């Protein structure tokens, strides 16, 4: 139709480009602007890796472009799954040698902390060409060990859930620091024109401790924060047009807002209005892309069976399928939280049937995800990370049923795809599983390594806040070169 408005598109293109080039924190707005400018992607090159010599904003060639992080919230027991300890089984029921206890602090130490060693009752076997040990509780994962780098020597600093989870996500146990997904999007921007660059999915009986701060942007611009997708038909808050408003009417509203904003942009000369116009265009695209993302009707029965999910029931398995669809659509960082791995013993948290149940909830789907990514050619560019905020003690707890306490000195994570060496077991804990004794991989080292795989030097990805340059790895972090070399 004939609008009573002049055509401002030339103005917009000019002012937007100028603004885009001059402004710092762009985030999602920047992505939208980039698409407005006909760029394929927006690299936060003006901001983050400022010293980057590379046109794509990276410090060195990337092995991985995207990440799927399977966060096992609560701290899964490595001793029941990947870290096979015959000596611990042999010494089952014996007191822990004093030499292992000195200088250590444990959660719940005062009331219920056990001091007797607990050997696993699970059967372990070697699998694949790599001969990695995996217990009977993860039969599907056992079949893909030749795709994985299993690291049995991970270590963390904090032994309570909320601070530990923050530590694993942000490199600090204190609130207010940006999460890894926020850092990565800040550094690299998103490749999706119509979805946020950092998406979070959740499953299990409860949300992860600490909630939204685990995927927060901290002091980074909020555009980089994780966007939690929910189950059901509305994956992003307020994504659906309100009832009673047709798609055509919604488009008319978008157009009217754009035209009036354009008039104001011309009147005031404020480039921020151009960013807002672009943000509304992105919002309009997200209204379409969001529902398309969660529409599983085109997924084949074979795929659904492989993951062990149907189209309608919220579960970790369905989230794994969403994760693949998200990386297919260019989302940079996908994080799945699954609870409850907090196997202290006690109601709902024992190492017997409760632990078997939570293993069943993830085992088939996580293996299917890795294989599905591989089959679709996505695995080489997608780094899959699996692990909790810590592991479990070699001692059992004095509770009604079998359980283990939180343990930060040795636990297991695994990595797949994204340039990671396939089919290796890296690092060792001591014979009782107490301390990492070979190739210790501290959380800061893991962060440095993940950034490295993405082409980012963890020492150069910084943000000045309250008078200091902050980074994900604080003042720490050594590359775990064996993970890819």
């Amino acid at each position, binding site marked *: *139709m004939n609008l*009573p408005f*002049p055509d401002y598109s030339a103005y917009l293109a000019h002012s937007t480009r100028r603004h885009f080039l001059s402004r710092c924190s762009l*985030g999602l*707005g920047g992505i939208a602007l980039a698409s407005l400018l006909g760029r394929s992607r927006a690299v936060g090159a003006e901001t983050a890796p400022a010293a980057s010599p590379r046109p794509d904003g990276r410090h060195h060639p990337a092995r991985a472009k995207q990440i799927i992080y399977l966060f096992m919230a609560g701290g899964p027991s490595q001793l029941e799954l990947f870290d096979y300890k015959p000596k611990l089984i042999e010494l089952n029921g014996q007191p822990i040698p004093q030499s292992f206890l000195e200088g250590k*602090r444990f*959660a*719940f130490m005062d009331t219920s902390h056990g001091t007797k060693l607990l050997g696993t009752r699970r059967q372990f076997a070697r699998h694949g060409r790599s001969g990695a040990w995996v217990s009977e509780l993860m039969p599907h994962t056992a079949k893909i060990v030749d795709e994985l780098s299993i690291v049995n020597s991970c270590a963390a600093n904090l032994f*309570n859930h*909320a601070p530990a989870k923050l530590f694993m996500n942000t490199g600090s146990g*204190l*609130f*207010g620091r940006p999460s890894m997904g926020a850092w990565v999007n800040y550094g690299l921007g998103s490749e999706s024109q119509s979805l*946020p660059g950092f998406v979070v999915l959740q499953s299990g009986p*409860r*949300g*992860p*401790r*600490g*909630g*939204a*701060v685990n995927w927060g942007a901290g002091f980074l*611009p*909020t*555009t980089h924060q994780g*966007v939690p997708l929910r189950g059901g038909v509305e994956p*992003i*808050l*307020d*994504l659906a*047009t*309100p009832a009673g*408003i047709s798609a055509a*009417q*919604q488009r*008319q*509203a978008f157009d*009217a*807002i754009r*035209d*009036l*904003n354009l*008039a*104001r*942009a011309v*009147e*005031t*000369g*404020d*480039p*921020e209005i151009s960013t*807002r116009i672009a*943000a*509304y265009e*992105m*919002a309009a695209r*997200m209204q379409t892309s969001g529902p398309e993302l969660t529409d599983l009707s085109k997924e084949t029965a074979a795929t659904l069976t492989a993951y062990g999910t149907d189209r309608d029931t919220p579960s970790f398995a369905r989230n794994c399928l969403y994760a693949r669809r998200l990386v297919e659509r260019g989302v940079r960082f996908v994080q799945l939280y699954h609870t409850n791995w907090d196997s202290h013993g006690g109601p709902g948290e024992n190492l017997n049937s409760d632990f078997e149940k939570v293993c069943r909830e993830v085992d088939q789907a996580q293996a299917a995800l890795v294989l599905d990514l591989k089959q679709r050619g996505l695995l080489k560019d997608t780094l899959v990370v699996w692990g909790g905020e810590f592991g479990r003690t070699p001692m059992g707890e004095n509770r009604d049923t079998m359980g283990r306490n939180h343990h930060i000195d040795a636990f297991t994570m695994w990595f797949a795809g994204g340039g990671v060496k396939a089919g290796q077991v890296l690092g060792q804990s001591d014979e009782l599983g107490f301390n990492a004794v070979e190739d210790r991989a501290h959380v800061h080292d893991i962060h440095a390594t993940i950034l490295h795989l993405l082409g980012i030097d963890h020492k150069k990805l910084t943000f000045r806040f*309250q*008078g*200091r340059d902050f980074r994900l790895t604080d003042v720490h972090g050594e590359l775990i070169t064996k993970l890819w070399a």
Partner: protein
Amino acid sequence: MFPAPPLTRFFLALVPLSLAAQPAVDYLTEVKPLLAQHCCRCHGAAQQKGGLRVDTVAAMREGGDSGTLFAAGPVDGSLLLKVILGTHDEVAQMPYKKPPLAEAQIATIRRWVMQGAAAPAHEEPEKTRHWAFAAPERPLAPEVLDTAWPRNPIDRFVLARLEAGKIKPSREADPATLLRRVTLDLTGLPPTPAEVDQFLSDKSAGAYERAVDRLLASPRHGERWARPWLDVARYADSNGYSVDAPRQIWKYRDWVVAALNADLPYDQFVIEQLAGDLLPEPTAGQRVATGFNRNTQINQEGGIDPEQFRIEAVMDRVATFGTAFLGLTVSCAQCHDHKFDPISQQDYYRLFAFFNNSVDDGHGKTVSGGLLAFPREIEAPEGLMRELEEARAALESFLNTQGGAVTAWIATLDTPARVKFGATAREALKLPWDQLTLAHKRALYALMPDGAPEFAAANLRLQRLERREPRPITTLVMQELPQPRETVVFIKGDFTRPGERVTPGTPAALPPLAVANPNRLDLARWLFAPEHPLTARVMVNRLWQQYFGRGLVETENDFGTQGTPPSHPELLDWLATEFRERGWSLKALHRLIVTSATYRRSSHARPDLATSDPLNRLLARQTRLRLDAESIRDVALAASGLLSPKIGGPPVFPPQPDGVMTLGQVKRTWTPSTGEDRYRRALYTHWWRATPHPALAVFDAADGFTTCTRRLRSNTPLQALTLLNDPQFLELAEALGRRAESARGWSAAAKLSHAFRLCTAREPSAGERARLVAFFKQQTAPGGGGVRAAWTAVGRVLLNLDETITRE
């Protein structure tokens, strides 16, 4: 133009004009600034690497370990030229490990040395003191050429800088824009169309100032300015960490609103918040004010070490104190001496000692003493208290007849049986029956086998009534332990590694605290010592930041050596001294700023300044600022006509999308408020730290975890989705549409203009009105939702305009 440090300007004033007029290189303007920028960090007052300092010509002549900088002979043979050229055999090229000086800069220094390296008269060495650690001295407002422009001294400082750069200030903003600006800035709400009309028609002198006074007197002013203060105080309605249980501390929020409305002088405002509990015979209000330091998080997770989280809270109080009042990053000294500012690790723990003595623990279990109750403020339902009294009396009179039976039964009990009793019953065993309270008697009798049926009936009746009995309102307050805790330095900031013992004290680089055994109250009063260099500067800077989007010191939370120097140092100091001279009146400061000519400029971009001053540091114009999260909701509420004027009280629950509350560890419910509470200002929205209201969080509301002195202003698609589709905004759009539609006898175009004015305070241009008319026609076309829906659609468009959510 090189931004001259304060000391250089001091010298400039002393130099005879004739010297500057000579064709020779001017040391003070051409050489000294170069040395100050590139050399004095290592060779100045703070440190003298190689025994050398270059902050005076005399010191350069004297030289350091390698001798004088100006040896006789060819100029390029002098030590100074050799090191900056990089031709010295042993000394590395200077500046050390930095890019060399530019050729033109080296040439200037070379010419100056050739001309004899003349020293100015009375050149004094650089002082060690960073500017922010010296008390502000009151500068005279500078002379300006355009004497008609300034409205108050602020303008002379600003105009002098602009004139020096040959920049003309922008024109004044349109009256409607100006009134909207000042109304939003002073009250957080837009002006009503009637207020705009009145202002536009008032052509008499002082119309604007009268509007300012009206706004400053409005109770909305305290609500608006409480918000940035509550950001600093990291206020929230929940405990944070993983459990994030609700807490009651809204009395503190209401105290802030009331204090700002009453223009409580800033010194009292701060002293009562930091140490109201330690004032002689503190009032309830003064104790409520200490909630400032109780806004720390509480970790209620099982299995934690409570001491660890008690210490986290104390550290948070130190960090907040440092940021909020000193504008310093004192937390950097938690693990080691501050790398840049004169704050030692000892200094840090000396500050820590002031906050280390309160009764609250790290687990939220020890609340006695840290909690102030207001039992009389509860309004019980009609007749409930009378019924409760009657039921209690009935039960008590029955129990009073049962003493013998109970005593006989107790005598039959052995120790294991007694141990199994609950705490109240166990207590009751210690006293004879007639000395027991009703609660004790009740607890014991309930355990007795074969109790009389009269008891069961009377007890049940009382229990039912008690369930309806409102709990007393409480608020978290500071309270000192009778015996202070011992404070030690934590080695590397690790509380499990105690180091040497320290006593309370203030950082050595700041004015001394001349009190023996100082406590928190002394610390609070110390902030307002006449020679304190930071308190006033930090606060006027934060106020300035709210009005111009950026502080005079851009790093509003870092006045230390790593912060940015002030853009207008004299203005900052003038404002700081003025603040003090006006009795620390915040309203006087607000009035001063908003009545300045500087504040009243148009915010339109200036193409002529796009490259020279893109960020508007020189303040030739105002700046368009996206509204804060709370104001975005409040503007929509006001435009829709639904806004409730109710001040204070418990937090409220405006609608939010389903499922938000399930994202936290503990699933909580969010039952939307009904009636008036549904439409309260966003200040009153219940703030869950772990699961904040998404419509506020998406617009960068402070998270409440740590002190926040400046919010980000992000601009995202999620904000667009919120304003367009969120049920609470849809409800307001509908009300706005209805309000516009109901103007009887007006044409559609006039109604559209009215709705537009409700949001932006100005008339739409002809083009804008035509566009709205075209949109309205689209919406009312056959097949649409009808006229009512079309008006809602208009409301949606208007609430989504960039201008509606922006202060221009």
